[in-house]
């Protein structure tokens, strides 16, 4: 055992105690593995972040039942601002010992407000001052601390308001902090995260493997020297593992460094859901230990596996020269199994709304991803083997790859996983975005603000305030009732004038006295003429008019003009304010006008142009983050490719110099290098695009979602890959130039 | 043109003692005993000259006009006559140095003497070597040609000669590479 450790230590010494070259190699390894470790640490922090969030979320829940008079009254309200929601609670302390919510110093008095830092920032912006501040006339008496916030960018307030009265909805608060069940993640979002994590983690593992093998030829020469002085083959392997260990340890140091360097800036992420308190981002002990142990073990195992075919002899390294024809059948297993699992699950997740059997889906995705680097070496070998090389440059490249395509294939295998994952994510994103956009576009075209005042609001004052608001052209009123069919179906009933109906969609030939039925989205009829409804609230019976027209204009249910609604008593009223699209932020002005009402009693719905812009911004940020991540991984891969290419030029210095001396144009040699880099990358890009798109389609099918293609994104990725190929080749050219200069001919 | 021979025996090339003594005298007049000592020191390693050889050679050179009497040194030794080199003697040394030896094995005594004397007299030792190389190469070319046309026996015999000639040339190259070092030593 001592000898084993001694040999490993010798390996570490060889890795660090050498020339500038061995330092460069160690630095590259450290950087490559370090990037991976940092990603792993962030992934390992995810449980803590989510736990902390959940804890604070629970702490925010009100305990609404208790004995005696309630010490505190609370009304929750969200203020939409453009596409963001400012959430908060209006509070009224009924006794001096009223429970204080987490994150603030005291229950705010009447006319006082606590705001979150993000809300304070927003209110300080010009737009916030003009368009949001009117809704917060209270005096800001403090900010909400981290203990009261889910994430650093959350928009939250606690305002004191003496007008709150106890009501039957249960606005009484006896204390704070209660755990509610449920509220899990949206399955699609959940799957997106899984795919994302797999996509990120996989290349990390691949790169740890590749980085371990950087500059292998140089290492082999060193090891041959060890054999010469009498080390046995197995000890040499152990020493080689020691070198890999050194890289892994350097990677751990770099990784932890990166992690702690990046962590403090996490609260500056502009998308609130993605931001996190740095102090929450703490990898769990178990996962940290796993990373610390697994990365070096992986490095050692990879290097042992890599040397399986290498026989290190005292006078040099013999690689089993006869290239072993790679067998395909077992390489196909993960891909086929992955596809089979995904196909078997197609459409199932859409059916049940809870958590369907996600494991087959996740396993399918992971297997498909795993299949790429497994399949790629075989594929590259096959393709290259079939090529003959029309031009001398291509011939040189093809022959070179035929002799050893493994190294390049492994490097690009890592790239391929990232690319495939990115493509899949882009497709999922494009799919989600398309749905969201379609909804928003539809509503944005209407450009109406819907106002839902509470039942006891001063509706006339609201109507008056709306009418005088900037950018509001007309205000319609829609009364609402709700009925139950004998068969058990619930029917929403809207009573509105023809003008008000027209505000919701085209209703042809509308005259007062007509009645309409709006079928469900899937075409199922909601109610039929002559049906008898039991009205909620009043409990009276009401018969559906006999002359019933069908329209698609508005919400499913019945739509009645006032004359057709005789005998119906509405329990609720809604206002629809038509907005002048030429007035910017008309919706915000209208919302500000509503402050005449008690703020917690009015709800507004509007998705207009500003909001789509915001959604686009969010998608844009996600896409840029995705691209940045891809670019980063591709850069690491390109660096690996560069090392491989430089090493090859160095190994082939002599033949290259002779070729140049014999008059072979440098251009031909440069082109052969380009081909040599381009072929594996091209194959892997095609494979990863195909896999990514295929996986995307399969996953979208699983969710029964519409398939969308992000051609621009795919084009961009392809362009980046092409660019990197040229960049790597260009960076190899100086060393090619050096090798082919006449000095390359001079004996070493 | 040199005719190549087949050298199957060890032939010791006759060393030109006369030229050697002349070369030594170029450094300045000496008497016979000095000359013998200088010669033995530089060239006579295992075969020192006899006095008789020295005086007979000197008297031949005197007769040919290559050396001349330079007076008798005062002292009590038996023979204190000093000799000096004449212009004709210098010319003779020059001719000797610039004429390559017939490319034969075991020339080193003569070649070495030539190199040392060239150095002693401030002439170019490299020229001596190049001249000799050229002569050797000509012989080797002829042998190579014969080898290409001949049967296996011819080839083997030619190769023997070629390898020996090559050894001479390699020795020449080695000497040439150390001329500066040698110059320091001989002029000390």
């Amino acid at each position: 055992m001592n000898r084993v450790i001694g040999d490993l230590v010798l390996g570490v010494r060889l890795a660090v105690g050498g020339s500038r070259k061995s330092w460069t190699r160690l630095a590259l390894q450290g950087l490559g593995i370090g990037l991976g470790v940092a990603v792993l640490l962030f992934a390992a922090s995810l449980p803590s972040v989510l736990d902390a969030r959940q804890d604070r979320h629970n702490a925010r829940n009100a305990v609404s039942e208790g004995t005696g008079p309630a010490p505190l009254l609370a009304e929750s309200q969200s203020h939409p601002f453009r596409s963001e929601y400012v959430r908060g609670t209006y509070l009224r302390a009924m006794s001096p010992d009223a429970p204080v919510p987490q994150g603030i110093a005291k229950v705010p008095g009447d006319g006082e407000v606590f705001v979150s830092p993000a809300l304070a920032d927003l209110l300080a912006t010009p737009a916030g001052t003009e368009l949001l501040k009117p809704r917060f006339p209270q005096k800001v008496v403090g900010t909400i601390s981290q203990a009261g916030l889910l994430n650093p960018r959350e928009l939250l307030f606690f305002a004191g308001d003496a007008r709150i009265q106890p009501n039957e909805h249960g606005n009484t608060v006896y204390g704070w902090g209660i755990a509610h069940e449920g509220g899990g993640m949206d399955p699609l979002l959940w799957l997106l995260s899984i795919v994302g994590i797999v996509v990120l983690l996989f290349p990390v593992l691949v790169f740890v493997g590749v980085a371990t093998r950087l500059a292998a030829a140089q290492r082999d020469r060193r090891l041959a020297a060890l054999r010469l002085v009498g080390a046995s083959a197995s000890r040499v392997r152990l020493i080689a593992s020691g070198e890999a260990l050194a890289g892994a340890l350097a990677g751990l140091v770099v990784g932890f460094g990166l992690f702690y360097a990046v962590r403090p800036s996490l609260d500056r992420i502009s998308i609130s859901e993605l931001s996190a308190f740095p102090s929450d981002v703490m990898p769990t002990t178990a996962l940290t230990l796993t990373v610390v142990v697994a990365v070096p073990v992986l490095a050692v195992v990879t290097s042992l596996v890599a040397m399986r075919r290498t026989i290190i002899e005292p006078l040099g390294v013999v690689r089993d020269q006869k290239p072993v024809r790679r067998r395909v059948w077992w390489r196909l297993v993960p891909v086929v199994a992955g596809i089979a699992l995904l196909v078997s699950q197609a459409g199932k997740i859409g059916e049940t709304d809870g958590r369907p059997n996600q494991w087959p889906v996740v396993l399918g995705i992971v297997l498909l991803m795993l299949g790429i680097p497994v399949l790629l070496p075989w594929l590259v070998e096959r393709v290259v083997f079939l090529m003959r090389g029309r031009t001398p440059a291509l011939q040189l490249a093809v022959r070179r790859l035929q002799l050893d395509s493994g190294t390049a294939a492994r490097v690009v295998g890592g790239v391929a996983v990232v690319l495939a994952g990115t493509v899949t994510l882009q497709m999922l994103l494009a799919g989600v975005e398309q749905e969201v956009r379609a909804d928003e576009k539809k509503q944005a075209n209407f450009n109406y603000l819907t106002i839902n005042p509470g039942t006891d609001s001063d509706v006339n004052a609201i109507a008056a305030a709306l009418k005088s608001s900037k950018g509001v052209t007309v205000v319609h009123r829609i009364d609402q009732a709700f009925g139950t069919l004998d068969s058990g179906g619930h029917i929403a009933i809207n009573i509105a004038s023809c003008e008000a109906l027209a505000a919701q969609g085209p209703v042809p030939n509308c005259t007062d006295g007509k009645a309409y039925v709006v079928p469900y989205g899937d075409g199922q009829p909601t109610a039929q003429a002559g049906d008898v409804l039991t009205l909620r609230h009043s409990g009276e019976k009401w018969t559906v008019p006999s002359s019933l027209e069908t329209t698609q204009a508005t919400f499913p249910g019945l739509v009645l003009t006032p004359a057709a609604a005789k005998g119906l008593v509405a329990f609720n009223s809604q206002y629809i304010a038509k907005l002048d699209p030429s007035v910017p932020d008309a919706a915000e002005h209208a919302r500000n006008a509503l402050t005449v009402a008690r703020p917690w009693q009015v709800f507004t719905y509007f998705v207009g142009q500003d909001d789509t812009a915001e959604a686009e911004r969010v998608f844009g940020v996600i896409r840029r983050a995705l691209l940045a991540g891809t670019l980063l991984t591709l850069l690491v891969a390109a660096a690996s490719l560069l090392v491989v290419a430089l090493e090859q030029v160095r190994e082939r210095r002599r033949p290259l110099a002779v070729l140049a001396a014999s008059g072979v144009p440098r251009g031909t040699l440069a082109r052969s290098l380009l081909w040599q880099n381009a072929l594996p990358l091209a194959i892997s890009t095609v494979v990863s695009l195909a896999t990514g798109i295929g996986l995307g389609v399969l996953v979208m099918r699983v969710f029964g979602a519409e398939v969308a293609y992000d051609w621009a994104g795919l084009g961009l990725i392809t362009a980046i890959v092409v660019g990197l190929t040229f960049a790597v080749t260009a960076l190899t050219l100086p060393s090619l130039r050096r090798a082919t200069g006449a000095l390359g001919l001079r004996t070493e | 043109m040199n005719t190549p021979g087949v050298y199957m025996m060890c032939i010791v090339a006759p060393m030109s003692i006369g030229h050697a003594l002349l070369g030594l005298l170029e450094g300045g007049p000496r008497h016979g005993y000095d000359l013998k000592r200088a010669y033995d020191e530089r060239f006579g390693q295992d075969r020192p000259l006899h006095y008789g050889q020295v005086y007979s050679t000197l008297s031949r050179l005197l007769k040919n006009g290559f050396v001349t009497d330079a007076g008798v040194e005062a002292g009590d030794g038996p023979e204190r006559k000093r000799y000096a080199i004449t212009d004709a003697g210098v010319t003779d040394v020059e001719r000797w140095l610039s004429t390559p030896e017939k490319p034969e094995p075991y020339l080193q005594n003569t070649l070495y003497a030539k190199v040392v004397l060239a150095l002693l007299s401030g002439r170019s030792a490299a020229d001596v070597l190049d001249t000799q190389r050229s002569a050797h190469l000509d012989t080797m070319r002829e042998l190579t040609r014969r080898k290409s046309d001949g049967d296996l026996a011819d080839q083997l015999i030619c190769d023997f000669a070629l390898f020996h000639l090559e050894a001479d040339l390699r020795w020449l190259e080695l000497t040439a590479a150390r001329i500066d070092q040698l110059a320091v030593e001989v002029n000390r």
Partner: protein
Amino acid sequence: MTLLRAEGLSKSFGKTQALDGAGISIRAGEVVAVMGPSGSGKSTLLHCIAGILPPDSGTVHYRDQDLTAMNDSTRSELRRTEFGFVFQFGQLVPELTCLENVALPLRLSGMKRKDAERAATDWLARLEVEDVAGQRPGETSGGQGQRVAVARALVTAPKVIFADEPTGALDSLNGERVMHLLTTAARETGAAVVLVTHEARVAAYSDREVVVRDGRSRDVEFAR
């Protein structure tokens, strides 16, 4: 007829003066040995007269063209079409088969693959190594590899073959064989050979020698 003529060549690498006013003249069809101790500048002289290295000063004329006035790509093309090269080792592309290696110069000049490989096969046969045509250089012996290299140098029917220590990595017998084949083939095709060597037995295959010492070349053909 003088084919190649260089005068007053000087070349320095950093502080090392490799050539210091060297000159040489090569007639069509002759075999000239360039001799000299290692470090004397004989390889640099070969690189300069073959247009691989531009000299610091001096001129190199091939026929009526001034090599020193040419740009890199023109010199490359001249080397590819008019000259052939044989070096001591490591000159074959390890990934290509021997046949492809020999065919490479022809293909670079635009010849069709089939034609190029047919010509290459002929030359491999002339150098008695047709049986290694399908093997990679790493799978052949040193002597075979060097003969393949000679075939590659000759395949374009060059006017001058530059050989820099072509037998340096071979034993005597293989070296002699390569030299015999090289000079015989060169005489048959009328190509001149500039042979850099420090071995007299190799130089003995030449018609005359030029000695390089301390960066200066000497003409020692005097006893003719």
